[in-house]
């Protein structure tokens, strides 16, 4: 049969051309930037190990929240309440580390609070079959107000009381490596734990019956139900676990402030970025890491730009990580496909 030229292969050669063009433009841009003082300054910032280090620190709360979100979404329950879990988790982490005199108390409190928010979200969306977005919006608004109120009630003296934080753990030998040692191997323990969670979750999702059950419930709950899986029980557990993990992201957020402090709206929309990171990562823990890290890079970059003094209003610089996320979603996510049953409540016989 005769095919019109380029009809089937429309995507491929054109995409290659675009990439080549982008690469060329990038190289040219670097060369040009090097010619200016500002450009040299920025490139020096980017090349320093502190840049990747800061990016990883900024990415960790997002990573934890997004991994939490992933668990819930794979089971078919959208978790846009990540923002509330992160913010309430952060407040709990801060207060509990302060009163308990150890950051571990904060981490545990954050997990428990996240779990409780997860329980609310699960009750609304699974038991009452409320709209999953509406439930999340309500929880997010509640968290913003509740943490602001709680903070003012407990800490009447003012802001910036430093709570105990996680100690920096310098991995032996590795931390002495040039560049990498500083960038990757001298972080606080929570960051290693968060990174370790990626392979652990991958293994559970793809190598265990639990993971298969979780994925099946999100893809085709009726099918899971016909082989005897209790769909709504699996979803409850998934949302609870999701809440616990996302709650702990609050602990990472507090420690990412460097001074282990809390302030109103500390999360500042990062929970929504984590929600986007799940999509960006195509519902896979490894992809989710890249989504979170991309935002971390943007955040670290804008802080350095502010410090360097580029003569741009800092409000615009603050937008940078969000803009990068937005662009990444537009460019890469045109055909993203999530769990088929995501967002749809499951009704047993006769309940509908």
């Amino acid at each position, binding site marked *: 049969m005769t095919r*019109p030229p380029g009809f089937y292969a429309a995507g491929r050669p054109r995409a290659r051309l675009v990439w080549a063009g982008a690469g060329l433009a990038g190289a040219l841009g670097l060369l040009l930037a090097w010619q200016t003082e500002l450009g040299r300054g920025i490139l020096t910032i980017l090349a320093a190990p502190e840049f990747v280090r800061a990016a990883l620190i900024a990415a960790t709360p997002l990573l934890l929240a997004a991994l939490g979100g992933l668990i819930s979404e794979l089971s078919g329950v959208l978790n846009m309440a990540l923002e509330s879990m992160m913010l309430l988790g952060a407040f709990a982490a801060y207060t509990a580390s302060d009163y308990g005199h150890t950051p571990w108390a904060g981490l545990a409190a954050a997990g428990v609070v996240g779990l409780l928010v997860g329980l609310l979200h699960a009750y609304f969306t699974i038991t009452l079959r409320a709209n999953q977005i509406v439930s999340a919006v309500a929880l997010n608004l509640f968290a913003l107000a509740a943490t602001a109120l709680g903070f003012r009630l407990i800490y009447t003296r003012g802001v910036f009381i430093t709570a105990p934080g996680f100690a920096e753990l310098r991995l032996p030998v590795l931390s002495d490596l040039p560049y990498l040692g500083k960038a990757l191997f001298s972080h606080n323990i929570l960051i290693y734990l968060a990174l370790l969670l990626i392979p652990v979750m991958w293994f559970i999702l793809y*190598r265990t019956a639990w993971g*298969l059950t979780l994925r099946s419930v999100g893809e085709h709950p009726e099918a*899971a139900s*016909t*082989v005897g899986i209790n769909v709504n029980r699996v979803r409850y557990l998934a949302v609870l676990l999701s809440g616990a993990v996302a709650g702990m992201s609050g602990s990472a957020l507090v420690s990412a402030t460097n001074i282990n402090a809390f302030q109103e709206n500390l999360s500042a929309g990062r929970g929504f970025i984590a929600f986007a990171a799940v999509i960006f990562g195509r519902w896979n823990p490894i992809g989710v890491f890249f989504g979170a890290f991309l935002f971390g890079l943007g955040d670290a970059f804008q802080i350095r730009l502010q410090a360097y003094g580029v003569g741009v209003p800092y409000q615009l610089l603050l937008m940078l990580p969000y803009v990068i996320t937005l662009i990444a979603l537009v460019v890469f996510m045109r055909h993203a496909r999530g769990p*088929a049953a995501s967002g749809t409540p499951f009704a047993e016989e006769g309940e509908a």
Partner: protein
Amino acid sequence: MTGPAFSTTGREAALELRQIVKKFPGVLANDRVDLTIYTGEVHALLGENGAGKSTLMKVVYGLYHRDGGEILVRGQPYDIRSPQAAMALGIGMVHQHFMLIPNISIIENIVLGLRSDRYPLLRLDEAGRRVRALAEDFGLNAALSTKVGKLTVGQQQKVEIIKALYRGARLLILDEPTAVLLPQETEELFKLIEKLRAGGVTIVFISHKLNEVLKISDRVTVMRRGRVVRTLTTRQTSPAELAEAMVGQAVDLAVVKQPRPAGAPRLVIEDAYARDDLGSPKLNGLRLALRAGEIHGLAGVDGNGQQTLVEALMGLRGLERGRILFADQDITSQPTAERIRAGVVHIPENRHTEGLVLGLSVTDNLLLDVFEDPPYAQRGWRQFKVMDAHAATLTQAFDIRTPSPAVEVRKLSGGNQQKVILARSLWRNPAVLIAMQPTRGLDVGAAAFIHKRLVEARDQGCALLIVSSELDEIIALSDVISVIYEGRIVETRPTSETNLNRIGFLMAGGQPDQAPTGRTDAAPLLT
């Protein structure tokens, strides 16, 4: 079938149902049903849509909980309250809509919900070794790590059967297994059923197709409106007897149609290329001509471009290349509303989502494409008297059974809903009618009515395109049949010069020069 008629003497009852009652809000789905299935038989459950066959079997499989009656498995009463309980008793079910997860592999689907001996580890390799023998025996020629979504429908069905057997099923319920299969896949399924029976598996075969039931079953139980009408030994019954038992009255099964010369080409689509919403190419150089006074049947496996073709003809989807001619005028870029005014009308595939606005009245739905035109509206004011008169005429002319035309169309039965769409499409004597799945899910009586009206439209000079997944329906109705495969028409032939096997071969992607030849007997339409 050959061999002696099936005898129940000396056989053990694999499953016995006594006085099973199942109620849904407002419906008595199963009304004191008695049924005995003997070990090693193929037992057909025959009935129209909504007769309660699937409901009954879902009760047996533990998906529904019975409201009364007793279930005995191998002579022992059991209270089956979950599919797990049914599986533990050796009962497996293959659902009409497959309960497979497209996005995970064959083997993952097979072991889903089971515990390996090293739970919670999956141990897919070990399970694979045990499944492979079954897979080879059934001719499932795909790697077990293949995602199920990439398999053909026939292969998916085999996965479902293997899944049930792997879980220890000795009684296998097949719910409308042939509804989604090509003719040759159906042949293959029947061979597989014979094999299972030879291996001692008992089979319940749910169907509403007489010819299949006659071909494959040992005994038939006919259900109607939630009750068992009678149980017959297949070799001692006839199609007419079964049809009468199904419908409750003697029915005329054949479509009556006088030969009639076709007129000039009315709607022509040439060299058409188009993509679907996901951007995949769906029409790849398709050409098709609908002639006045001719019913043109379009046969093809779902997803080969039928939907996109109909959307393109109606102006609901743009073409990347090619053109559409209506009465020799180029209408390629004409919007849908103008096409409808010019007399190109459409019965969409899904009456609930595309054909009707369920929350509006019968009257409003009958006027959906003209309600803002005079005489139904004057200077923006709707003319209720005119509308009501119009609705009254149409409900009578098309035998739409509704308490009143003011009733929400949601409340009508499927057959009457389809008649509303038919009335809206046909009352103005359209130049072209494009009908997708015009009788899907309808009972024999409603389907026959719709067939009759479609033939009348043809006799009045309308050019019709019928897209249906029921090959029997296409063959019975059409004057000409085209086969669509991957967005192109493989072959167009007069119905009298083709046959079921040839069409099935072409639908599966076979080349016309290798296709089986032969003529179609004027077969009656057995629904």
